[in-house]
């Protein structure tokens, strides 16, 4: 996946180690990003008094879905659930045809066009939004 510096996902360096089993991403060259302190991308200005543009997301795997080595991400508020799904699928090296479901509060699957910032406002706690992801429909 090409690096998108202004995407807000704080992607690790694009060289993710290849050749490992499908259920584990090698920690090799993957650099976990420090959470909220890295919320401001270089070169962007945070307007005075504005709430920070990025929010912290904690990703948790459900069932036998592969676990992401980096679980905590700083994500731009306007990133959609679909954008997050695409990123996780690429990070976990799932094929495009495999489905991935994301759940809030372990109870509902938000619409793919839902912005994570709104979900954080309504369902975040302790300064982060916890999202569960699963290859099958965990909570209907």
């Amino acid at each position: 996946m090409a690096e998108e510096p202004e995407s807000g996902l704080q992607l690790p360096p694009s060289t993710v180690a290849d050749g490992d089993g499908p259920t584990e991403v090698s920690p090799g060259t993957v650099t976990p990003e420090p959470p909220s302190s890295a919320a401001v991308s270089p070169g962007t200005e945070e307007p005075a008094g504005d709430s920070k543009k990025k929010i912290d997301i904690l990703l948790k795997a459900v069932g036998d879905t592969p676990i992401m080595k980096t679980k905590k991400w700083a994500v731009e508020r306007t990133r959609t659930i679909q954008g997050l799904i695409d990123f996780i699928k690429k990070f976990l090296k799932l094929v495009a045809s495999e489905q991935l479901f994301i759940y809030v509060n372990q109870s509902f699957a938000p619409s793919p066009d839902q912005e994570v910032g709104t979900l954080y406002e309504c369902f975040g706690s302790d300064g982060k939004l916890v999202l569960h992801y699963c290859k099958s429909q965990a909570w209907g």
Partner: protein
Amino acid sequence: MTDDKDVLRDVWFGRIPTCFTLYQDEITEREAEPYYLLLPRVSYLTLVTDKVKKHFQKVMRQEDISEMWFEYEGTPLKWHYPIGLLFDLLASSSALPWNITVHFKSFPEKDLLHCPSKDAVEAHFMSCVKEADALKHKSQVINEMQKKDHKQLWMGLQNDRFDQFWAINRKLMEYPAEENGFRYIPFKIYQTTTERPFIQKLFRPLTADGQLHTLGDLLKEVCPSAIAPEGDMISNVKTFLFATKMLILHSKQHFLDGEKKNQVMIHGIEPMLETPLQWLSEHLSYPDNFLHISVVPQPTD
């Protein structure tokens, strides 16, 4: 004296007369006549337009048909938004019928979600219901229900069965005796004049000292541009009109001087800003248990 329950029926049975016309660039074997349909305000486009698809597919070749999608004056219509919301937001100031253009080609991937089957509509609907209950009851009520109750909500909507739907939905409208309302009110506020898809925030139905928050309180807090500045409003001494009288537009009565910039609309009506939010949530929510509120510019008559 009409009952609050009549409001529930009026909301459920609201209809929009619609004219579906095939997009001119679609390839047809013969002339495609427009198709007229009364659309339920509380339902979803892909749930109620099978007849539209059948009608136009009769004059088209199989190879020219892929997923049907709809557009109004150049704006693709999101099937996952309730029909009444789409109309209020985009077409409420235009003359009826609502003129929708039907497409079978060039699906706008950036604007619309795909709808592969009715199951997708069900999944989306149930997810919205669950999200609303997460806000109202920390998901306790929806989680206590059995799978068959969830199914009944969906079947009630799909089959336009008011009693079947409300037999279950009434439980989602209850709250503990010691409280005076839900934990938070499920709402989304839509405007065409901004970039954001909608506004949704945590908002309680009651103030710290137990007063009922009103629609005006909500707008002032989360969407102040929606309402005219203070001093232009009379608060109606007769206060809250809880019966179907409320369904009559009272917009002109709200104001002494000055122009109201915007209409704040739910189900095609403008509720008085003094209306308690808790009451609106219980009576004017869509079947997904959300208040979908449109803020549109005042039409110039």
